[in-house]
């Protein structure tokens, strides 16, 4: 069992960050919220509505979210633009030309228009993640979910991806993030959840938890990862 007794009431908020040691259940929790994993028990409520975990309902549910993974997000046999237009056309019923317009417009906004017709193999890791973010954003999702989006990137690319995420936050997008970037968590998180061994150890305002954690486990974790 990866998760156990997770009770979390976030109230109204715009950005939530999960932190904690590896194997602590952060990604699993995010995948449950994202409708990719079905919990053995318990309920998830989004916008006051309980998420139904039947496969048919999940397909509808996932369409209202945008998800970005650690790596291998993009479909390698398609160009960056096709990666964006596929869900627009096949899932959200856009016409081809409207999907392409939307895709190109977004790529331009994130300074990726030069790469529109390249395949993922021709892009750098940072560019790939940015295209993946554009794909997630393109469907105007209710919430954006990021599962360690920079863990597979070097520091420079990490920065360029985090910049994009920050920009989306300023735009007022609602997001949930799993990240190991503590500095970023501190800057971007309205609320932070510290998960360890499948439990919520601490949950509260980002600025508070990152600076004055109350639980010893949190304190120990933060001091360890902040040391370098």
């Amino acid at each position, binding site marked *: 069992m990866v998760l156990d007794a997770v009770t979390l009431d976030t109230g109204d908020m715009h950005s939530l960050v999960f932190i904690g040691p590896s194997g602590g259940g952060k990604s699993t929790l995010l995948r449950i919220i994202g409708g*990719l994993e079905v919990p053995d028990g318990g309920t998830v409520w989004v916008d006051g509505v309980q998420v139904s975990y039947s496969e048919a309902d999940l397909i509808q549910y996932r369409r209202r979210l945008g998800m970005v993974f650690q790596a291998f*997000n993009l479909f390698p046999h398609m160009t960056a633009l096709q990666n964006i237009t596929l869900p627009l056309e096949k899932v959200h019923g856009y016409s081809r030309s409207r999907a392409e317009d939307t895709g190109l417009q977004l790529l331009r906004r994130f300074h990726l228009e030069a790469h529109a017709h390249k395949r993922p193999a021709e892009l750098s890791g940072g560019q790939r993640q940015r295209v993946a973010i554009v794909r997630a954003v393109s469907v105007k999702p209710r919430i954006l979910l990021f599962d360690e989006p920079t863990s597979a990137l070097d520091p420079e690319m990490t920065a360029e991806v985090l910049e994009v995420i920050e920009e989306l936050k300023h735009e007022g997008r609602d997001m949930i993030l799993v990240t190991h970037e503590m500095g970023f968590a501190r800057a971007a998180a309205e609320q932070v959840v510290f998960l360890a061994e499948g439990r919520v150890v601490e949950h509260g305002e980002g600025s508070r938890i990152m600076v004055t954690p109350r639980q010893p486990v949190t304190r120990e974790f933060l001091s360890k990862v902040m040391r370098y």
Partner: protein
Amino acid sequence: MNRLKRFILLQSSPGDSASPRWPAIAGNLTLSFLILVSLFYFAFSQVTYQWAWGSVARYWYKFVYGWGVTVGISFLALAASLVVGLAFALAQRSRILILRYFSKMYVEVVRGTPLLVQILIFFYVVAESLQVRNRYVVGVLILAFFSAAYICEIIRGGIESVGRSQIDSARAVGLTRTQTYRYVIFPQAIRQILPSLTGQWVSLIKDSSLLSIISIREFTLNAQEVNAFTYSAFESYLPLAVGYLLLTLPISMWTRRLERKYRFET
């Protein structure tokens, strides 16, 4: 000295291209061919055998006809076995348990028994009970269902080579199961599948020779008949070997090209 080395050895020192130059390719190919020919020549010269090509040559049209039938049968069987193999592969990934188990069992039984036995049972029992009288139809079906077991495994391997994260991505953007197969899994799996598939075609062409036992007038049966008419032995079987090579060599060269192409593209 250096020139000799360059002729004999694959150049793999840093800075050199990994593939040999064309004189080395041509020279070494010719040499290999000559060695092979002289080995055969030596072996045949040891047996005292009266060659009688003249009597066999009169029946050249039977070879041509038989070769054509073999090409046709193996091509039709390949096409049919693609459909059947795909169905079995999808069955193995189905959520319906009986489909999974049935497909698994089928694959194991077909791959674990000799084609000869399958032909006899299928022809004399299954086809008979289903009232299928045309032996060519039966022949194509037997080969197709035989080859389907192998193709099923090839396709299944191709599908499974598409990583979990790709399927996650597909689900996350909201694609349905069918859409995931169509837009994400199949286009990627095909790169894995295609080279193995042409390889399977080569096997299929050779395996079709066994259909001679149910009197399908393909290449091998024609050669056997010429053999019987002329009381010869090797004169009809050697053209048979060459005839199969004419088919299988180009396909297996094509297979290698595909393998290289898809290895570098990923």
